[in-house]
C-alpha cells in the first residue's frame, strides 16, 4: 500500500457546485467524452456480467430472445393464412415479411426500453458509487445489439426457408439497422430521466409499443393512401422499418429520404439525450435515496 504519491500537479481536481453545467458547454462535452471513453471497459464488463447471468439461470437460454417476435409474427401469419386479414406483400411471402417486420420491431422496442430498464436495475449502485454512468447505458445498448444478433440467426433461417430474394441492397442493411436502433435509443434516452423518477414510464412502454406496432408498417406493407398512408409517411419509425426490411428482401428503397432525415434527427436527439442524462443524474440520484 505504501507507495509514493503523485505530485500535486498530477492530481485531478473536481468541483461540485450548484452552478448549472450548461454554462460551460465545452467542459460538459469534454467530461462526457472522457466518461464515455473511461466507461468502455466497465460497460463491456457489465454487459458480460448481465449476459452470463441472464441465461445461466434459465433452461431454454437464448430461446427467450427469439420468443417475443416469434409469437407476434405467428399471430399474424395465422390471421393471414386463414384469410381473416388479407395482406398482400408482393414478391415476399407473408410469413417471411411478418417475421422480418416483427424481428426488426423487437430490436427497436428493446432499444427504447433499455435505458430506463438498465438504470432501474442499477439504482443501488448509482445511489452509492460514483462511476461513469454512461457505461450503464452503453452496456444496455450492447445487450440490445446482442439480442438482435441472436434474432438475426432466426431471420437468416426464415429468409432461406421462404426463398426471400436478396440483392445488393443487403449491404445497406447495417446502416438501416443502425438508424432503427439509434432512433430507439434516442426515444429511450429521452424517456430515461422521467422514467428513473416515475415508474409510470416503464409500465407504459410495452402498452404503447404494442399500439405503435400496429400504427407502423410492421406486419403489413406501407400504404400510400388513407390514414395508414399518412402514418406511413409521418410516423417517424415507418421509414426505418420499411427501409430495413427492403434492404433485407432485395426491394427498391422507397423511403430513403425520410430514412436519412429520421436517422440524423435520432443521432442529434441521442447526443442531446446523453447530455441531458448527465445533467439530470445528480438530481435523480438525490431522489433515489439509499
Amino acid at each position, binding site marked *: 500500500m*505504501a507507495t509514493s504519491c*503523485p505530485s500535486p500537479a498530477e492530481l*485531478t481536481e*473536481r468541483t*461540485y*457546485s450548484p452552478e448549472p453545467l450548461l454554462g460551460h458547454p465545452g467542459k460538459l462535452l469534454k467530461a462526457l467524452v472522457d466518461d464515455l471513453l473511461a466507461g468502455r471497459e466497465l460497460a463491456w464488463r457489465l454487459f458480460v456480467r448481465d449476459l452470463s*447471468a441472464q441465461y445461466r439461470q434459465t433452461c431454454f437460454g437464448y430461446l427467450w430472445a427469439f420468443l417475443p417476435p416469434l409469437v407476434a409474427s405467428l399471430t399474424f401469419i395465422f390471421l393471414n393464412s386463414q384469410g381473416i386479414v388479407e395482406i398482400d406483400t408482393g414478391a415476399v411471402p407473408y410469413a417471411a415479411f411478418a417475421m422480418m417486420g416483427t424481428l426488426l420491431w423487437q430490436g427497436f422496442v428493446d432499444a427504447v426500453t433499455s435505458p430506463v430498464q438498465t438504470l432501474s436495475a442499477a439504482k443501488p*449502485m448509482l445511489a452509492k*458509487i*460514483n462511476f461513469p454512468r454512461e457505461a450503464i447505458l452503453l452496456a444496455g445498448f450492447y445487450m440490445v445489439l446482442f439480442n438482435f444478433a441472436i434474432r438475426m440467426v432466426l431471420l437468416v433461417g426464415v429468409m432461406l426457408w421462404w426463398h426471400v430474394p436478396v440483392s445488393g441492397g443487403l449491404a445497406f442493411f447495417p446502416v438501416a439497422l443502425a438508424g432503427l436502433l439509434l432512433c430507439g435509443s434516442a426515444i429511450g434516452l429521452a424517456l430515461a430521466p422521467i422514467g428513473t423518477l416515475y415508474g409510470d414510464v416503464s409500465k407504459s412502454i410495452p402498452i404503447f409499443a404494442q399500439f405503435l406496432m400496429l400504427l407502423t408498417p410492421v406486419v403489413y406493407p406501407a400504404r400510400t393512401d388513407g390514414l395508414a398512408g399518412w402514418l406511413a409517411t409521418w410516423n417517424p419509425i415507418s421509414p426505418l422499418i420499411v427501409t430495413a426490411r427492403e434492404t433485407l428482401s432485395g426491394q427498391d428503397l422507397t423511403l430513403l429520404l425520410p430514412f436519412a432525415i429520421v436517422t440524423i434527427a435520432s443521432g442529434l436527439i441521442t447526443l442531446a439525450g446523453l447530455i441531458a442524462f448527465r445533467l439530470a443524474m445528480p438530481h435523480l440520484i438525490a431522489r433515489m435515496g439509499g
Partner: protein
Amino acid sequence: MLTTITPVEKPLNAPRSASAPARSEEVLVDVRHVSKKFCRDLKRSLWYGMKDVLSEMNPWQKKSAARSAESLPDESDLRAGEFWAVHDVSFQLRRGECLGLIGHNGAGKTTLLKILNGLIKPDSGSVTMRGRIGALIALGAGFNPILSGRENIYINAAILGISKKEIDEQIDSIIDFAEIREFIDAPVQSYSSGMQVRLGFAVATAMKPDVLILDEVLAVGDAAFRAKCFKRIGSIAKDCAIIFVSHDQSQMARICTQAMLMASGRRLYYGTTAEAIDQYNAAQAAKSGTAYTLHTHEAIQSFELLESSPPKTVQAGSPLTLKMKIKSQKHLPVGIAFINFVDLAATTVGQADFSSHLEAIPEGESEISLTIDRVDLAQGIYSLNLAIFAGNKVETLVHGVSCAQVNVAGAPYMWCAYKMPLGAVNVQNAQS
C-alpha cells in the same frame, strides 16, 4: 497487529510542524458552505426532482438562481415539505488528516458524503476534491450472485474505477486478504455475507486513493477481520485524507485528527475529536427518557425508577445507588432480576444481577434500593434496562428499556467499556 495512529489534538488551522513534507500542506478536500435540501414526502420529492432536472436543462436559467458560494441559503429557499439535510457545512482536509463525522442517524452525514463523492449536487456552496477518490460505502456493489468471485473482482474493480492492470497485479493479495482462496471460482451467491464483505473490502482498498471516504463499513465482519481492515486503513491513512463515519467512538478517537458534530444537517461543533465526542454524548444525555418503554405484569399497578432524570453523573470507579418504587396488587415470586448497562452502540457492557436478593415483589407499595460498588465503565452515557421476570423465568413482571441514563465521567478514553483492575506488570527483555 494494529498500526496505531496517535490522534493529533491540535487547534484548527494550526500550522503543521516544519519538518512535515510540503506535500501534506495541500488541501485535498475543500468544502465551503455546502447545503442540500431534501423532501420527506415521496410524491413531492419526485415532482421536485422533475422540476430540478428541467431547470438544470434550461440554458436560459437565471444565473442568480444558482447561489454563489458565499451567500447562505435560509428557510425561504425551501419549497413546501423540504428541509435542510445539510446546511452550511464547511471544512478543509489535508493529506494525512482524518475527519470524523459524528451525529445521529439523519444528521446529514451520509448526505454530506454523497455530495463529497459527487453523487449529488449541493444546492449551494461548493466542494473541491483533489486526486483520486476512494469510497468504502457500498462494499461489493455490483456483485452478481451467479458469477464467480474472480469474475466479480474485475467487475467490482471496474465500477470503482480500478484498472484491469492494477487488479491483475494485486489479484493474489486481494484473494488472500479476503481469505477466500478455495472459493474464489465458486459463485458469489454461495458465499456467506461476511465473505462477500471481505471480498468487497479487499477490492475497494486495492487502489491507492488520495481521498478516502469510509461510511460505517467497519461495523461488519468479525473482530479478526475488523482488525485487519484497520491495519490496512492505517497503512493508507498517512498518504491520504480520510473522511470517517462511525458510531464506534473509540475507533474515531483513535484514528481521527479532527471531528465534526452534526445535527439536523448543521455543524454543531468542529474541532478536536475528544471534544466532539463529549458534546455528542452530552446531547444524547439531554435527550434522556425519550425512548423509555415499560412493560409490566397486570398485577403491577405502578413502577418508578427514582431520580432517573436528569441523568445521574457518576465518577468512574465510584459507587452508584439506584432506587425504585413498585406497587403490586399481589405477591409475585421473582425468578430473575437484573439491570443492564447499555452503551450508545447498543452493546450491553455491564450487568447488576440482584435475582438472589429479590425473592418476590411483595403486595402493596415497596421501595427497592440497590447499590453497585464500583462503576468501572469507560466515560460515556449508558442507558439502563431493568428486567424482573417471574419465578418461571418466562413471565414479565417489570421490563423497562432505557428507564434511566447514567453519565460516567472522569475516566479517560479506554477503547473499551470495562476496565479490568490491574495487578503487577513486568517487562522482561532477553538482551538486558
